[in-house]
């Protein structure tokens, strides 16, 4: 009896590859759409639109914001990670949570809190202050994970080769932090390029805020598309710089055996000032938003209607649920392909999904609007397009968890199931699915939280009349109804709180947000 031949070891089943390719294509589509649209403008008009003092100002603003904030977050993130993981700082576990928790406060909520405390705050100083406090955990997380996993014996070897304690730290320990720190800084940079809420509230124009303004002024967005192209170029520049700085040297542990635990550095008399510094950082990053929220909640707004909040919450949860499920379903085949033997195809598919993630939400939203208006008019202004945008935006977050889970279900286990009489489908259901379910669930939760607090793409794509927590908050705070915005902010923080837990248990160097 002739049966269909299976693929050779390493390649994924054809159906999985097909779905993976479709997902990858959807992820690159926005990039293509924006490029095509920009090129349709023509060289002459494009030049005229780009070569303006206004664009120069945006470029200066965007660049200085990225450079300054990345530097500040690197210093805060690496410094606090070292203090928490490598020194005798009292209460390290608590500090670890405190240094990650700011991520549960959406950045645009943080800016609202700061404007509450310092009403005059705006411009570059305000933007750097608020974004640094919101984003330094992106550097803290991967660096702390690496510091925690570092092998003391490497430092010991350096000492035995004649290096003093400081020289050993700089020559043996610090180089190992480089990939993690650079990865975190890249993440901060990409977030800054796509940040809208904070910068609009603090009146600091960048490319992203300009693109949204353009869109609000005129739907014909050829100028917007050109600005988006510049924004994409900036993203690609960041990616390239990070790649060049990271290099190709390996930093993995060589040899077998368990890594020895680190001996923490003694802070001694520095303990009190260090504790003070950490407390100030925590107060600025967490205390300010909490105080502001409590303040506005206690002030209250007589017109606040809990029914509206509940309805908005319902809409948000509905959108987040659909986007979470769709994203996990889409990420599964891609993660499956990548976890097998690396082929040019699987690498290309993986890269495609990451390209999409580095594109600002505003670019993806604009591209989807263009596509819907031109080719699928009935879909325009529907939740479907919005959910599709969320999927493209957040697929890498789901993939990180699913990939890690997939590593717990190696191919050999499927083979063992086959040898025990299971067909491919039954082997998948009985072995692969139970083993990857926890990872898929974590990935789903990450996407759910991200969608619940997404602002930029939602503002552009939400059907008329549809409010999410983020847009309801934005509209209220935009009309200076700070008390009315507070309940929505509180709801978003409650929904996001589990993020802290999810991020802390994520495998090291796998942090992607």
């Amino acid at each position, binding site marked *: 009896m002739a049966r269909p031949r299976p693929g050779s070891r390493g390649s994924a089943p054809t159906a999985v590859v097909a779905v993976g390719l479709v997902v990858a294509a959807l992820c690159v589509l926005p990039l293509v759409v924006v490029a095509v649209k920009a090129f349709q403008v023509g060289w002459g008009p494009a030049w005229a639109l780009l070569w303006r003092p206004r664009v120069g100002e945006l470029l200066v603003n965007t660049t200085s914001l990225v450079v300054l904030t990345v530097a500040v977050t690197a210093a805060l993130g690496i410094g606090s990670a070292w203090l928490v993981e490598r020194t005798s700082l009292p209460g390290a576990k608590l500090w670890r949570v405190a240094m990650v928790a700011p991520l549960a406060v959406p950045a645009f909520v943080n800016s609202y809190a700061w404007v509450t405390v310092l009403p005059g705050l705006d411009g570059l100083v305000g933007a750097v202050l608020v974004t640094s406090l919101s984003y330094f955990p992106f550097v803290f997380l991967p660096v702390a994970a690496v510091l925690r996993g570092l092998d003391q014996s490497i430092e010991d070897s350096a000492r035995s080769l004649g290096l003093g304690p400081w020289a050993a730290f700089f020559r043996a320990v610090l180089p190992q932090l480089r990939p993690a720190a650079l990865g975190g800084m890249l993440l901060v940079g990409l977030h800054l390029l796509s940040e809208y809420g904070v910068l609009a509230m603090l009146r600091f124009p960048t490319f992203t805020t300009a693109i949204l303004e353009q869109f609000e002024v005129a739907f014909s967005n050829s100028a917007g598309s050109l600005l988006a192209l510049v924004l994409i170029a900036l993203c690609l520049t960041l990616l390239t710089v990070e790649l060049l700085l990271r290099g190709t040297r390996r930093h993995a542990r060589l040899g077998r055996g368990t890594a020895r635990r680190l001996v923490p550095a003694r802070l001694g008399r520095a303990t009190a000032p260090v504790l003070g510094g950490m407390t100030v950082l925590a107060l600025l990053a967490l205390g300010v938003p909490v105080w502001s929220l409590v303040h506005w909640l206690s002030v209250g707004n007589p017109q606040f209607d809990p029914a509206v909040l509940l309805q908005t919450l319902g809409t948000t949860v509905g959108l987040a649920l659909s986007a979470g499920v769709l994203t996990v379903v889409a990420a599964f085949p891609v993660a499956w392909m990548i976890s097998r033997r690396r082929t040019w195809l699987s690498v290309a598919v993986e890269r495609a999904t990451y390209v999409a993630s580095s594109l600002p939400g505003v670019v993806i939203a604009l591209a989807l609007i263009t596509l819907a208006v031109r080719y699928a008019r009935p879909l325009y202004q529907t939740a479907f397009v919005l959910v599709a945008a969320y999927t493209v935006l957040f697929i890498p977050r789901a993939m990180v968890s699913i990939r890690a889970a997939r590593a717990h279900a190696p191919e050999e*286990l499927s*083979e063992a199931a086959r*040898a*025990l009489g299971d067909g491919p489908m039954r082997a998948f259901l009985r072995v692969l699915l139970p083993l990857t379910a926890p990872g898929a669930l974590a990935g789903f939760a990450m996407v759910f939280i991200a969608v619940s607090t997404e602002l930029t793409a939602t503002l552009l794509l939400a059907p008329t009349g549809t409010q999410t927590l983020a847009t309801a908050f934005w509209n209220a705070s935009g009309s200076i109804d700070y008390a009315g915005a507070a309940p929505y902010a509180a709801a978003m923080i409650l929904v996001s709180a589990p993020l802290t837990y999810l991020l802390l248990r994520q495998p090291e160097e796998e942090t992607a947000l």
Partner: protein
Amino acid sequence: MTTLRISGVAASYGGEPVLHGLDLVVPSGTTSAILGPSGCGKTTLLRVVAGFQVPDAGTVQLDDETVVGPGVWVAPERRDIGYVAQEGNLFPHLSVAANIAYGLPRGERRRERHAGERVSRLLELVGLGADLADRRPDQISGGQQQRVALARALARRPRIVLLDEPFSSLDAGLRTSTREAVADALEHEGVTVVLVTHDQAEALSFADQVAIMHAGRFSQVGTPSEVYATPADRHSAAFLGDAVFLRGKAAGARVSTALGALRLHEGAGEGPVDVLLRPEQILLGDMAPGRPCAEVLSTTYFGHDALVTLRLQADRTVVTARVHGTEVPPTGSIVGLTVEGEARAFGVG
């Protein structure tokens, strides 16, 4: 009771050919070991038999049924072949009992979930207590995991069992005891077994038939004593254990060497040959007239025995001899040598 027939199997991995037309017959109820260094293709052959890899050419038959051949490919789950991998590959989300019962029909599986009769019998068969049944795979030792993996494979009463280096990840003491338990269980079941290993002692002690594999080909197939005493070529000789090579001059059934005239296993014609002896064939004694003598250069002590490195006084050739741990001669002393058994001659290479 099933006979495995492999004929003309060729296979490649990542575009590189790794198996070049292999033939092997494993008679019903016997054990064959495929012995070779890592990377020689032995695991690939096992994967072809199990159905995890499609060969480029050749057929695999279980008795009269062809499972792989021109125009024929039977899915792994329909081959009734038990497969035990290097790491055991127990399902981490299932208990020991659920792992063993995994391949049973649904109804029976439900009954066996908490160590029913079948699971208990299998645990006993591989030398484990029924108290392990509710443990998770990560709560038992590596050796126990391998035994559970075997029990899981045997639960379905497979036609043949394939063992892919099942003991190599265990440490020395555990390896021996696990190997014995597995051998006993397999013998009790009377199942046809193919073992893949790079450990010559394991292959020689475990199997009825040893196939020595080198660069994707079988260089020799035979009983353990055959392949050890009369290796087909120098590679097999050196791979199977310590070997002593001497220059010699053959004359019919005898060969003259620096260790005197030796009996040959089979005549090698006339002329110069290379002569193979095993270290345990060289016996140390007192010097005596007409007996070749040698100086002890060094000794390597293993406890139960020792290897003695000797320089022959006749032509200063260096050879090794294996002696009992209680009879190690002092370094620098001069000893007389005698040779026991037959020698093996190869053409001068």
